[in-house]
């Protein structure tokens, strides 16, 4: 298998090699890798199959929003198998065993994929309509067939062998998300002496700073600034930092449930250690700094292995030192994918074409692309993707005035990176019955009326640049502290080389078909 690691990139520990298995094959990665990043470094994109049509699937993201790369995991021993773990989240450790899902008899050759060819027969609701009658067939015939062919993963058959702990915690200020906004809020409140808890689902604090480091922060290299920031926060007695901790629910009166993963990254967990700890954190004020999620674009074949979000490719490169492919086509309607493309070119990836559906983009983007020798196709779109278990090329055409596509050509590539802009991550806020309002200008849902004492900062408010996120984090902390009756001393964080950008929203890309096949489940 090819090695797609990039020297000098990534936050993995190259001194510590780790072996794990995927579908019985042994792979090597480094400490700090996820299953997805380690497999991608080995050139493996095919990580599962879809549950209905058994279409081959690879990872489309690099985080907890992953819909495709779901795997079964085990550290060996009875009661330690778990289905539906995101390969993009699960860290590798020596001895980790992983398996793909929804395949029979194997991931590479799957009989159920015939459904994909017959998809016109299998209308929506096929299972429910076809397997209804006669009733007596349910137990013996239909259910086993459906379970075997349609389920998501395999249910564990033995009792869970692990122990789980539960704790209560109280804080003046709880901050969810440790990207630029969350860190700025934490610094502001922490220096003020406020009792702060900062939780983040990742192994490391930093959020988007880990995936796309600006040139410098406060005149220091981003990495230096970040480690000094974490050092400061971790030495203050009024601050508690929690990593690998997912805020899973926002309940009445500012109670937030947080699931802290304790041992799923360790080859040898301490005897008797709980696997996870469930925290019920009651905070007087809450700041949600959960950033934004990149939107996929709709075109035929956008679920093929090798098609992923542009930001995911950027994360795999900058955080894990992995090239997701050698020749990529970028399909975007937002500036952010241009920056992802620049990072990839600088790391030695060929950008076969940078396709932007917008007819004009900023001159600075065009000149940066030109300086890197990237073929730019503005006012163009990707029509379809070639390749089954891995992308082999795309069809690209020019968008005409009437919304159709002409001058269609083929471009070879092994990766397609898409970006349809960004959507604020407001799931937790929505738990509180907080309303969302549609922002016409930016075409996003933004937080509206609140029912709890919470503040949204950064990407959650539709602010896309890191400088804006830092500033907004400070502002949110000031508001929270005022609400606590404390006087906040303001701070400032200055970003150099910030990559602000904008874009447009496309519900569906232009195409010459009347309608794309809706949803390849």
């Amino acid at each position, binding site marked *: 298998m090819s090695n797609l690691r990039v020297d000098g990139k990534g936050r993995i520990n190259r001194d510590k090699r780790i072996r794990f298995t995927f579908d019985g094959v042994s792979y090597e990665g480094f400490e700090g890798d996820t299953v997805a990043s380690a497999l991608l470094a080995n050139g493996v994109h095919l990580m599962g199959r879809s549950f209905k049509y058994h279409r081959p699937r690879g990872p489309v993201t690099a985080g907890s929003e992953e819909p495709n790369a779901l795997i079964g995991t085990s550290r060996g021993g009875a009661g330690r198998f778990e289905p539906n773990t995101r390969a993009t989240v699960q860290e590798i450790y020596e001895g980790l065993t992983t398996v793909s899902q929804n395949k029979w008899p194997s991931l590479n050759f799957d009989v159920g994929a015939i459904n994909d060819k017959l998809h016109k027969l299998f209308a929506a609701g096929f299972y429910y309509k076809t397997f209804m009658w006669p009733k007596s067939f349910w137990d013996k015939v239909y259910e086993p067939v459906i379970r075997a062919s349609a389920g998501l993963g395999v249910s564990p058959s033995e009792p869970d062998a692990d122990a789980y702990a539960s704790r209560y915690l109280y804080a003046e200020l709880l901050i969810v998300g440790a990207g630029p906004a969350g860190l700025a809020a934490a610094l502001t409140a922490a220096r003020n002496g406020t009792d702060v808890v900062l939780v983040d689902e990742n192994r490391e604090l930093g959020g988007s700073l880990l995936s796309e480091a600006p040139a410098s922060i406060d005149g220091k290299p981003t990495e230096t600034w970040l480690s000094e920031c974490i050092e400061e926060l971790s030495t203050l007695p009024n601050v508690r930092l929690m990593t690998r901790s997912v805020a899973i629910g926002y*309940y*009445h*009166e500012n*109670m937030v449930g947080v699931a802290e993963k304790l041992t799923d990254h360790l080859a040898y967990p301490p005897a008797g250690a709980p696997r996870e700890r469930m925290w*019920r954190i009651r905070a007087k004020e809450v700041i949600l700094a959960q950033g934004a999620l990149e939107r996929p674009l709709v075109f035929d074949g956008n679920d093929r292995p090798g098609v992923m979000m542009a930001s995911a490719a950027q994360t795999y490169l900058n955080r894990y030192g992995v090239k997701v492919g050698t020749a990529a086509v970028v399909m975007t309607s937002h500036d952010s994918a241009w920056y992802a493309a620049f990072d990839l070119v600088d790391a030695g990836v060929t950008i076969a074409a940078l396709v932007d559906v917008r007819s004009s983009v900023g001159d600075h983007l065009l000149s940066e692309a030109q300086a890197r020798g990237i073929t730019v196709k503005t006012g163009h779109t990707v029509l379809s993707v070639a390749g089954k278990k891995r992308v082999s090329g795309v069809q690209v055409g020019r968008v005409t005035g009437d919304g159709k596509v002409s001058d269609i050509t083929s471009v070879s590539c092994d990766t397609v990176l898409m970006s349809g802009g960004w959507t604020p991550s407001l799931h937790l806020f929505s738990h509180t*019955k907080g309303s969302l309002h549609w922002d016409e200008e930016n075409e996003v849902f933004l937080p509206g009326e609140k*029912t709890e004492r919470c503040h949204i900062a950064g990407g959650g408010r539709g602010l896309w640049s890191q400088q804006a996120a830092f500033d907004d984090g400070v502002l949110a902390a000031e508001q929270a502290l005022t609400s606590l009756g404390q006087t906040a001393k303001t701070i400032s964080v200055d970003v150099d080389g910030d990559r602000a950008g904008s874009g447009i929203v496309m519900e569906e890309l232009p195409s010459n078909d009347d309608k794309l096949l809706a949803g390849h489940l």
Partner: protein
Amino acid sequence: MLLIHCPYCKEKLPELEFEYAGQAHIARPLNPAEQSDAEWRDYLFIRSNVRGDHAEQWRHTHGCGRYFNALRNTVSDKFIATYEIEQPRPTGSEEGEKSNEQLES
């Protein structure tokens, strides 16, 4: 998880310590034998189903153990007031969206 102010303990405590105990201010007829079947049925079973402020009884089961009354908005699920069992329903409860915290202070 809600925080509920017990009017006897004079403390705001987690919902886990409390139990819901039905609609408030339903007086037991002084002489049940004189009730018609319909009146007795109404007393036993007929309850309101309010969309808005609802007067209800709660019991501080894992605390002082006493029953008390509360006014809670069934749409926002916020407590507007809690008060001792023999007190009448508070007036001016149209501020249904205000949390009990604001009213306490």
